[in-house]
């Protein structure tokens, strides 16, 4: 059905999300070498991934008439 909505959500939303992530990282507030920062970055990325997977699976379940 409306795959456009799914793509729009994660592409346009993803652009905002990425800007919010990259700018402080590049500005030096966070570092991959710091264990606490690394854990924070991974948590944020996993949270985003969680929504991508959950809503994609939901979409597929609905689309195949499940």
């Amino acid at each position, binding site marked *: *059905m*409306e795959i*456009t*909505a*799914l793509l*729009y*959500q994660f592409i*346009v*939303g993803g652009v*905002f*999300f*990425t*800007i*919010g*992530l990259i*700018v*402080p*990282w590049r*500005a*030096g*507030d*966070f570092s991959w070498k*710091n*264990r*606490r920062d690394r854990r*924070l970055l991974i*948590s*944020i990325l996993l*949270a*985003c991934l*969680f*929504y991508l997977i*959950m*809503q994609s699976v*939901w*979409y597929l*379940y*609905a*689309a195949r*008439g*499940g």
Partner: protein
Amino acid sequence: MPLGAASFAMDTTVIGTRLDYWVIVGYFVLIFSFGFYFARFTRSTKEFFMGGQRFSWWLITFSCVATVVGSYSFIKYSAAGFRYGTSSTMSYMNDWIVMSFLLLGWLPILYFNRFLSVPDYFRKRFDNRTGVMATIIVLMYMVGYIGINLYTMGVALNAMLGTDIFVSVVVVAVICAVYVTVGGQTSVIMTDLAQGVILLIAGTLLFVIGLGALGGWGEFWSGLPLLHRFPFAQFNEPQQFNFVGIFWQDGISNTFALYMMNQGFILRFLSLKSVNETRKSFLALILILMPLAAFAVSNAGWLGRSMVTHGMLPADVDPNGVFVEVAGRICGPGVFGFVMAALTAALMSTIDTLINAVSAVAVNDVYRPYIRAGASDKHYLGVARIVSLAAAGLGLILVPVFASFNSIYVAHGAFTASVTPAMVVAIVLAMYWRRFSATAAFWTLLGGSILVALSIMLPVLVTPFSHGVDPAGGFKYTRALYGLAGSGLIALLVTLFARSRQAGELEGLVVGSLWQAKQRYKGGKPNEDDGLKLGCLLCESDGVGEVSVNREVAESLNARVGDIVYVSDARWWLGGLRSVHAKLSDIRDDDDTTVLVAPALVLEGRLQIERRHKIERII
């Protein structure tokens, strides 16, 4: 998705037994007592506005759920669920977009600089003029919002229980005003914690009972039309509920505004014991509790649609009344009362947060800087309490105004829609773009708001941003994209021609200078090495500056003299209620692992010295 008062004009259907009403009355008594009990933990403005900055992440996360779920959420999202299906969850499931801005930028900047509000931040980041402008916007937005929440709550309770609108509004406003005035943020957090739990349990219980009534998951799912089963609405139709409009208005504009501009949320996150806890709290909120909240407030609508398909509900059921209709039909005596209590929980938890938030802005951004500077904390606490009562009173006065003049209700909606995109752009650029100047911020707020207000009168201005949405609805949702783009353009143009502040003046106030913000917070070089959290015994001692530990404990904590440590009662379920932050003032060379604490800190943290405690290094 803002819902006008007219949308609540459903038939008055009084359902429920005497037991249900006793459950609701019992709930009111419980919440009032709960709020009043925790008033004893408030003795300073820091405690009144931020609960003493001592709480654990899980406690704040649950309390946030009750605050997010507004006074009309059950009615509104059940109606959307009934009309459009499971895509009614969209508004709650797009908060992840704001996550990186919040966790890496906004929250650390506010927390480490000890800013209490957006106007406070704008005064330091820009100038007084921009701070005043932000104060006016935030206060108008919040006070009007108290009135709207009280009014919509009165209408909703009238429709459900047949109670008089003004009687129920006065009862709820008085209950909230009393415990907020006495207990401040701690009472708000504790009552909202209870209400968040009740709300989630009731929403889930309703769905489980509904599935049973329908005959299981298969029957429920097959009763939903195909288009009702997707996580997203149709891309750009219908104009009342389409994906792209909700994405820009709710997912971007309102979500950024909720977490960055809503004073209630700012204070809630500042109530946590550390920046690390704010991050944990927000992640848990986004990952677990927001999906649960979306499900809790919407599922009555999905059940209703499936029940219509299976002939268990009439096809002409009023969508705005579907929540009460479904709950009334499937819940037994007492359970219906519990579900209605959950709805009331949603109503009260938004109002108490707003009352406390208005008080914070009025005292910290108006009274303290412009009316009486340099007074004692006790004086400001008294003023904060008076303002809390006044805010509730003002909200009450606005109820008949909103009820009598729909145009005023609409005007507040238009005001909020106008200022939100401009405020969002100003906040994001303030922390992410060093060159963004005071002049640019001022004109972004003013010009951006005017641009959106113009588009309400001339909807054609929004056409280039409408993504093909039918203009018949006046571009109610896609207007947010127009507002964001217009405000962004003004910000860009004015910044190009206005003088920016020197880089040194912005240290700690923008991304890229978080280290300086941490230094400011600590008053020394931050210590971010990994350390352990230890169980310990306390001893009150007059002879120490603040906190003293022996070398063995200091090494386990990885702490040095001057570091900020956090001492809390070891009972996890207190969530930090009995705890205190202190400077590590001394490292001893003896073998005694007892932590020595100054008497003033024992009193401040309400520490029960004979109990077991925990100690950890914060920074």
